[in-house]
């Protein structure tokens, strides 16, 4: 059935030692043509806390889950990309416009966009996530209702925009006007929330590669977001994932779209500077 992927795998096995075929040493090439950087030199701002290398969450998944992401025909996240392509072309709101009215073909206009978000918006005087920018266009260019943060429509649109940057390195700016937001996110990353008193770093910095009960801990990178999760069979935004991880420490969570999660997203994204944009990735 999956002829292309099988071919790609066969070629791969022939050229590389079988030990490197799966697991933490596996290589990811989408559709046999887009190479994805899943291990990259650690950005300087990390000061070596993750060692020399940063790693995509893809490397920590089972062979089966890994394979599901290798070909767009197998990747269930691509269905949502198709749906977003339809809403890209749909006129909505008081101005009689669609996304396409201003941005034409996303394959051209949205190339490279995902890789630099979240980023500082000079006019608004704030750090914006991709979702915030999409809603800004809806409200102020189209005269349409904003979409609900991290819910179906907007997450699918983020996936469509992300696909145009697949294989390009994440490259979010952390200096200049974004710096104070980045610092806020960094402080959150090391805060031990909740009755379990666990920080993001406890699990994703000190223990990546280790099992916590049945879960294989990754570095908690967000280069693959939005992520299709086999667990809930839909696309998930990074803020929903942050919320779930904080809830699991028996803490009061923050809300998707909150200023706190925007700051955390900027910081976590910057920990992945150099990894490829992978979205929509597949995880368990």
């Amino acid at each position: 059935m999956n002829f292309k992927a099988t071919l790609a795998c066969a070629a791969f096995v022939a050229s590389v030692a079988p030990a490197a075929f799966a697991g933490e040493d596996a290589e990811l090439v989408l559709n046999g043509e887009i190479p994805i950087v899943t291990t990259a030199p650690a950005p300087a701002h990390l000061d070596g806390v993750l060692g020399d290398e940063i790693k995509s969450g893809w490397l920590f998944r089972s062979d089966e889950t890994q394979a599901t992401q290798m070909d767009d025909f197998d990747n269930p996240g691509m269905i949502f990309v198709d749906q977003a392509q339809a809403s890209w072309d749909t006129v909505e709101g008081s101005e009689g416009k669609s996304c396409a009215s201003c941005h034409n073909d996303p394959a051209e206009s949205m190339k490279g966009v995902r890789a630099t978000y979240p980023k500082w918006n000079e006019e608004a005087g704030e750090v914006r996530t991709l979702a915030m920018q999409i809603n800004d266009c809806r409200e102020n260019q189209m005269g349409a209702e904003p979409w609900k943060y991290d819910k179906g429509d907007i997450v699918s649109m983020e996936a469509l925009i992300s696909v145009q940057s697949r294989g390009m390195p994440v490259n979010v700016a952390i200096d200049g006007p974004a710096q104070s937001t980045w610092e806020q996110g960094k402080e959150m990353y090391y805060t031990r929330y909740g009755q379990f008193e666990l920080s993001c770093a406890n699990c994703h910095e000190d223990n990546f590669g280790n099992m916590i009960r049945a879960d294989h801990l990754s570095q908690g990178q967000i280069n693959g977001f939005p992520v299709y999760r086999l667990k809930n069979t839909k696309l998930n935004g990074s803020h929903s994932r942050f919320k779930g991880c904080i809830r699991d420490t028996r803490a009061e969570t923050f809300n998707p779209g909150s200023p706190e999660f925007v700051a955390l997203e900027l910081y976590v994204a910057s920990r992945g500077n150099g990894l490829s944009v992978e979205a929509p990735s597949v995880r368990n």
Partner: protein
Amino acid sequence: MMKWIAIAALSSVAGMASAEAVAPADVQFDDYGAVEVSLSGTPGDAANGAAIVGDKKQGNCVACHQVGALADIPFQGEIGPALNGAGDRWTEAELRGIVSNSKKTFEGSMMPSYYKTTGYIRPGDAFTGKAASEPLPPLMDAQMIEDVVAFLATLKE
């Protein structure tokens, strides 16, 4: 005699299992983090302790620790050291201290404190993600701690 009656009355109000339970705020840790006095006043039940250590809904210690004596429980974690031989390495008082509040023994430990009710950042109402106000119910009650300690004491190499 008077004191005994007073405590009994108090604890029945609080709904505690044992008349002599030490409240979480009153636990005495020594300089190395050990707790000499039984928290419940009732000897621990090692078999029940084993069940608590392995149960996802109770101690869930195997989320982070491997326990050879509980080999039938799948998916044991690798965050902390394996607990095999813990009963050789630590006294009962030390084990009681580690389970009650590991940070008094291991500074900055990732291990949660199971008999502590205050001092949290954004404490939540169990796993709902909603806010809760302190004091929270401890993660385990006094008798559960004693049962777990009794089980750990049986772990000899």
